[in-house]
């Protein structure tokens, strides 16, 4: 399988601020890759380097095997891009902006087919193309970029927090479009800090923090690193037996339910003991990306929590 995006030790400094500090990212052809990190982690900076809008201060980045800085315009033939915060021309209508961007990408050459694609997208995204750019809300500006990106087929979609400002209904429409382009074989890099979105769409995930890659792998691999939660109804007289179960963490007994976590590869070992106890109302929940995220940024949250309140 060929590699579409590859960065190794990518660095970016703005004066004294270090935005990227050795970022590694590998995205293979045909995959939907989640690019996760809190705001300011360097997601947008990475994407701007991949687009050749910014230049890396160190390390290397390649896109389809080429240098995104020197070969920017050629690479852009194959790329659809949705910025995180879409700005539009105040005097151009949404429809004009969509047409302009599609034509600049060379996607409107087949006029009739393009018109159909545009029409369909405007309809599914429930977008009014006749308003002037300055009159659109954030969500509607986002729709302009999404429609323009999806109306022209691309090999790679670079999407920077593409659903910010969209309502849940539109998020579903967005997910369907992602499924559609993925089915056509396109590669997608989807940056987000919304974990459920990434969890639902992505094959693989890279988590970054303060400009560094902290974790990368398939959803299954990452889950392996976390713990599964087990919970059941508390019955009198079982306390000693519960305490005796080995390998449990964070045991709590709260409002009539017993809850603890075990390392995901040890779940099977715990089950016989639960059977012996004849537990009622058993639930076994796989770790969500939320927990994965909290584990990596937990110390940051703890620091925030300790900050004195004014």
């Amino acid at each position, binding site marked *: 399988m060929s590699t579409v995006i590859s960065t190794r030790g990518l660095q970016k400094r703005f004066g004294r601020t270090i935005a990227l500090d050795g970022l590694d990212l590998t995205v293979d052809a045909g995959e939907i890759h989640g690019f996760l990190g809190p705001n300011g982690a360097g997601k947008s900076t990475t994407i701007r380097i991949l687009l050749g809008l910014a230049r890396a201060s160190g390390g290397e980045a390649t896109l389809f095997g080429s240098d995104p800085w020197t070969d*920017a315009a050629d690479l852009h033939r194959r790329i659809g891009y949705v910025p995180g915060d879409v700005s539009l021309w105040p005097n151009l209508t949404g429809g*004009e902006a969509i*047409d302009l961007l599609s034509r*600049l990408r060379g996607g409107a050459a087949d006029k009739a087919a393009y018109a159909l694609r545009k029409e369909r997208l405007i309809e599914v995204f429930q977008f009014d193309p006749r308003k002037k750019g300055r009159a659109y809300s954030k969500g509607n500006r986002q729709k302009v970029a999404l429609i323009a990106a999806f109306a022209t087929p691309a090999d790679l979609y670079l999407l920077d927090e593409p659903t910010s400002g969209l309502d849940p209904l539109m998020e579903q429409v967005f997910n369907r479009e992602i499924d559609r382009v993925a089915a056509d074989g396109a590669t997608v890099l989807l940056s987000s800090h919304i974990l459920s979105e990434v969890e639902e769409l992505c094959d693989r995930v890279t988590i970054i923090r303060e400009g560094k890659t902290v974790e990368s792998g398939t959803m299954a691999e990452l889950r392996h690193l976390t713990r599964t939660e087990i919970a059941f109804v508390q019955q009198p007289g079982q306390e000693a037996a519960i305490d005796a179960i080995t390998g449990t963490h964070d045991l709590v007994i709260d409002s009539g339910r017993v809850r603890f976590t075990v390392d995901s590869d040890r779940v099977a070992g715990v089950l016989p003991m639960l059977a012996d106890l004849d537990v009622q109302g058993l639930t076994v929940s796989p770790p969500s990306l939320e927990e994965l995220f909290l584990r990596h940024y937990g110390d940051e949250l703890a620091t925030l929590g300790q900050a004195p309140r004014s």
Partner: protein
Amino acid sequence: MTRFLVLLRQRLRRDRLQLMLWIVGTALLAYAAVSAVFDTFGDEGDRREILGIAIATRTILVFRGTPNGTDDGAFAFFLLFAWLALMGGLMSTFLAVRHTRMEEEQGRAEFIASTPAGRISPLTATVAHGVLANVALGLFVALAFIGTGLDASGSFVAGAAMAASGIAFLAFGLFAAQLFRTSRGANGISVAFVLAAYLLRGLGDAAGTPSDDLLHVTPAWPSWLSPIGFGQFTGAFVENDLRPLLVPLGFAAVVVAFVYLLQSVRDQGASLLPGRAGRASAGPVLSSSFGLVWRLNLSILLSWTAGAIATGLLATSLSSIVGDVAGSNPQVIEMLRRAIGDDASIEQAFVATFYGVVGILAACCAVQVGIRARQEEVHGTAELVLATRVPRVRWLLEYWIVGVVVIVVVLTAAGLAGVLGASRAQDPETLIPNVLEAAAAQIPACLVFLGVTLLVFAFLPRATIPLGWTIVGVAAILGTFGPILQLPEWLNNLSPFAHSPVPSGDGTDWSGGVWMLAVGLAAGAAAVVAMRRREVTSGG
């Protein structure tokens, strides 16, 4: 009351630098201009002569004021007041729109309106802010007049006239903000209103009835339609009559009352004139990034071209009159000579001064095209284009090309307008080639400004907007006022406009133009090439 004070303080704080520049700048201009006038037209005989020419030719009055005798104060008021009031008017309408419609457009007004401050007290704070700014402007201009040695009561009357006309413009700005959905629309109509007020009083003065001694004029009716006209009716330094100021102040009161009414009945963000629905798909112009650059700069081009056409028409339609009158006025000839050099004839000199102004207009237009590139970058829309197949170098090259095109269009329009105006002159055959040469002679200096603005964009992107306007502004002041203010030669020579060739029959010296052509083209090319290494900064 405390809420009102908080809002007022916020406005004062936000505008402190901007208003200080407007107010102190206007006052300094008044001071410098009055001092220069005293140097140049020191004795009564000179002034008599100038007033005589102005009243005889009439059109000069459009750009000056109502002649009211040769006393120091009255003469300065005649030369300067309308111009100063124009500055005050622009300051006031921009202030009004900035704190009302622009706040609403950008969503900040909604934020404020959701607090107990509500929708009305921000308006009250803006009115108070604008009135304060105008009072300060009037006071500073009065002090500047006093500083040059003019009589105090007259200076304060002149200051009061500035403040009163400014407050009338403030009210109109507030009304325009109710009318339009966008600050751009509101600012556009407000600037047109201020310019119209300036022009109406100009027509009133030009069409007025002169006294027998050719030292006074009673303005005609158009002045009665203009706040600036009423400011002139005070006859500062002579009659010192404050009563005419009740008219602009009354106008302001009525308009502001209406604005309060509109503000209290309309929805937040809504406007009297609804926004129109636009087209759902793009026309053929928007097929390329070049088409986009063209489209983004079209309105800029149209407005500067309109100014250039007006100036070109005036240049030739006035030159014949001047030729007649100036023959007997060594003072005028001397002043024109100082700006032009010794070889040109009076008509040539006159045409050249006007086309110097046309050159400034074309340069401003070109600088604005360069600045538009930066605005696109800051706004984040350049990024959308550069993420498509458009390379960085080509992107800036297209702005350069459009910049060159607007220079040629503005100058050509002014040249054709001049030819049209010349058709009524006594000697069009000699005037027309002069006009075309004078227009063409401006091209090199304009290319320098365009090139330098793009260079700044390539190497000091943040400085593009302030530096672009400063360079062309300073050069324009040096180029037009330098010879009159008798500044040192080397200072004048810093301005590219000073090197523009001056057509003088067969012996026109084009060498300065050739040099500037080379410099301008080199600067533009260097800027475009520099884009190979230039990052696109992210929005904000």
